[in-house]
């Protein structure tokens, strides 16, 4: 089966700065892939290169086996859900959704039923004659989603579609996108800086940093087996300990561990034990977060039951070797 999207050594420069630095990426048909990273990492630029809103300075882009990197946006079989929604303010919801169909030469008689169906799919059937300004942000993004999906593109592109919504709407729309992907099985490339979005939605996540893909894998792989310090710190909470050359293995390095895998030890029950001094304790609702200082740096971890120690108390912290990852210093 031909893959939906293939990027090879794709490069985009702004002046001397490489916003996208020769990245390779393959997305299979029906796959939901997320580009995750901090702002400025090149994820949005990558999406724009795929959609044709920007032209690459090098490399090749193939969609369904066809090379498209020299094609303008309107000749590519992609459809984008924009951050702002980008609904045409002078058109009704139905006209907005019909626009892509019209441009693709779908016979007029087929447009009406298709629009009607897709509005039912995104659960907005009563909104056909409304104008965008008379709708909430969440409703607009549903229409934007319908407008992109109705043309049945080879790849659906999402440019941080939920970043302008408040938390409740965000979760609703996230569930909606998830449901639709399960039901319809479209191919999607989704850009976000929000890791919980990425975790919840994706088949695979590509973590980007400084124009490069640091790691690509399933959400579990990304979280459990981060390939670099950047991925470890960007995805999920983490503590790191500075290790001098002789401590664990020969070169100096950093040991990373999830706070959820750290615990207080009383006897010698853990594989690894480290002495620490409590600096502060916060109650976060349901759990207590304990901050402590060790000889190798500050750490924190959570405890469900109230800790029987206070600030300045000496404690012992333990963890399993398999839960920690060691990165030598470069």
């Amino acid at each position, binding site marked *: 089966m031909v893959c939906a999207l293939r990027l090879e050594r794709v490069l985009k420069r702004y002046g001397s700065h490489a916003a996208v630095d020769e990245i390779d990426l393959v997305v299979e048909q029906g796959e939901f892939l997320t580009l995750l990273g901090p*702002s400025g990492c090149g994820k*949005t*630029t990558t999406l*724009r290169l795929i959609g044709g809103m920007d032209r690459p300075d090098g490399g090749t882009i193939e969609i369904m086996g066809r090379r498209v990197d020299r094609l*303008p*946006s309107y000749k590519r079989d992609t459809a984008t859900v924009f951050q702002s929604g980008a609904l045409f303010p002078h058109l009704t919801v139905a006209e907005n959704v019909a626009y892509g169909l019209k441009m693709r030469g779908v016979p007029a008689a087929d447009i009406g039923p298709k629009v009607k169906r897709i509005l039912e799919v995104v659960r907005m059937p009563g909104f056909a004659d409304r104008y965008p300004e008379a709708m909430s942000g969440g409703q607009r993004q549903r229409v934007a989603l319908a407008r992109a999906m109705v043309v049945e593109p080879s790849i659906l592109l999402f440019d941080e579609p939920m970043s302008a919504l408040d938390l409740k709407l965000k979760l609703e729309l996230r569930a909606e996108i998830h449901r639709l992907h399960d039901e319809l099985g479209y191919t999607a490339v989704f850009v976000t800086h929000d890791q919980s979005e990425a975790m919840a939605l994706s088949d695979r996540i590509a973590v980007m940093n400084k124009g490069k893909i640091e790691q690509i894998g399933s959400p579990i792989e990304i979280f459990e087996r981060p390939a670099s310090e950047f991925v470890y710190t960007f995805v999920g909470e983490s503590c790191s300990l500075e290790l001098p050359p002789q401590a664990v293995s020969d070169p100096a390095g950093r040991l990373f561990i999830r706070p959820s895998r750290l615990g207080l030890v009383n006897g010698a029950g853990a594989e690894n034990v480290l002495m620490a001094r409590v600096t502060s304790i916060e109650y976060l609702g349901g759990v207590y977060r304990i901050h402590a200082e060790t000889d190798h740096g500050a750490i924190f971890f959570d405890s469900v039951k109230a800790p029987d120690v206070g600030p300045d108390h000496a404690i012992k912290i333990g963890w399993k070797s398999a839960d920690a990852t060691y990165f030598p210093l470069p």
Partner: protein
Amino acid sequence: MSSADAISRRSGISGLTANIPWLLVPGLLFIFFVFGWPLLYLLRMSFNDHPGATVYVEAWTLRNYVFVLTDPGMLTEIAKTVYLSVVTAVVTVTAAFFFAQFVWLREGSARLIFLAIALGPMLISEVSVIIGWRMFFPSNGLLSYAMTSTGLSGQKINLLSTELAAVVGLSYISVSYCFFSILSVLNGIDRGLLTASADLGASPVRTFFTVLLPLAKGGIAAAFTQAFVFTMGIYATTNALGPDSLWTVPYEIQLQMLTRRNWPMAAALSIVLIVIIAAAALVTQWLRHRKGSRHV
């Protein structure tokens, strides 16, 4: 948002924006052919000779410029044009400022009505303005009738063909532009400052000179330049409302062009007029920036 994302948003090269430099071509071509080329032609014309019967004879002579810049009659005309423009600009900017300040302090529909009034002069053709004032100023006009019928004046009065009438007509032409430049600057000023100044015990006059005027300085300077530049180029109003002796440079240009059929002289006068206007604009621009930098 980092600079890379910001840049990518701004310079987004979608289908339309990829063609951007080309989109400038029609406008630039038009400006070149209808503005640039004729002005170059005018410049060339100003060095031609005008021996008599013919409109011009090709030559490279400075005679026209020497005449314009040394002949006492011409120099008087230049001085009068500048004088009239300065007077008009001062009167216009003052009127526009006080009316803009008045509108600035209004709200709601009153504000809209006054804005519409201020917009009025911009919509009226110069020739209609002339015709209007020519029915107002002469001895059988409205002013004279109003004065005699109310007993304010014992006899008919005629103010047509006076410098007063000329300035009234001239300032009518640029007053709207001045009003809107000043109002846009005033709109950027917090009205609470006036109340604050009054609270601190400053009299209205003091508040005006110490708070409002310094803040609105930029708009006033822009309005002054506008009024001056506009007035420098007008001759119809000056000629139709002012005294017959009030010959200005633009009037001389049309006289040379249409009546004397001396194209090189008309061209030389035009170049001199453009140079004076450009110099005035540059000087005020320079003064503004120099003052601005001293404050920063």
